[in-house]
């Protein structure tokens, strides 16, 4: 060690930094989650236009199942990649799990204040969009575009033609797929 030079030290540190950067780049990039939620969103919103009772049942069950399946997909993807990070997994689960609490709160407000019809759907879409966009800011940038689509779409429901919910659902589903295919989960430089 007495003969260790500054150059050797710098090379070793550069080596370690490159290994860390490489690990950061090996992030979950599968489209499985995007396809799952694109299917849920697309189906659920379409039902709002064509079969409202079925839509109520769908939105009561599908998000719960989707959440559980997403958790498993994410966990299996980590195993495939050879890296386990329990902390980010629980952060994601808590973030998205909060949607269930929010949904109950919105339904409670709607029931006690007499809100009906499309307004409830718009509120749910608006809040979902905000939660999604915030996830895009703090967790995985691939959620930003779908979040924006939901927020803007929730306000524009009255202007989306004969089948507004189907249109919003399709736009959101497409944004999920596009983000999953063409965007990286996060900017490595921004997080270093």
């Amino acid at each position: 060690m007495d003969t260790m030079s500054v150059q050797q030290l710098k090379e070793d540190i550069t080596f370690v930094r490159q290994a860390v950067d490489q690990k950061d780049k090996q992030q979950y990039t599968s489209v499985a989650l995007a396809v799952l939620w694109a299917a849920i969103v697309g189906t659920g919103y379409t039902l709002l236009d064509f079969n409202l009772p079925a839509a109520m049942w769908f939105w009561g069950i599908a998000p719960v199942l989707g959440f559980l399946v997403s958790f498993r997909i994410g966990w299996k993807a980590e195993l495939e990649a050879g890296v386990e990070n329990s902390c980010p997994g629980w952060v994601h689960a808590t973030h998205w799990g909060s949607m269930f609490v929010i949904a109950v709160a919105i339904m409670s407000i709607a029931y006690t204040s007499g809100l009906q019809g499309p307004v409830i759907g718009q509120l749910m879409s608006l809040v979902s969009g905000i939660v999604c966009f915030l996830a895009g800011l703090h967790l995985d940038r691939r959620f930003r575009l779908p979040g924006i689509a939901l927020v803007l779409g929730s306000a524009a429901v009255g202007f989306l033609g004969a089948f507004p919910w189907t249109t919003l659902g399709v736009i959101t589903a497409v944004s999920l797929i596009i983000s999953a295919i063409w965007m990286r989960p996060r900017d490595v430089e921004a997080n270093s």
Partner: protein
Amino acid sequence: MSKQTPESRSNNLAQLDKLLEHRSRLGVCVLLADSERIAFSSLKNLVKETDGNMGAHLRKLEDAGYVNVDKRFEKRKPVSWYQLTGKGRTALKAHLDALQALIEGLGG
């Protein structure tokens, strides 16, 4: 930045962990510090070592108590998962602090 005295440099050198002087072992500990667990094959690819060398490095770290190994079967194949221990985390921090002091003293 002022250069350090020979005494302080000698002190900083003495603070360096002998086990972590090898870049691959240092790299393994740094990678494990940032994750819950990492599989053998991922560690090997990230620090660009062969199976044999990687195994030898990890055995040394395990013998020193710096890492734990959890051997599982996944899809009927044995997979070894490595985790940094508290002792390893402490040793890594001390080593990195000593490295930083050494580099600052060298004016690099």
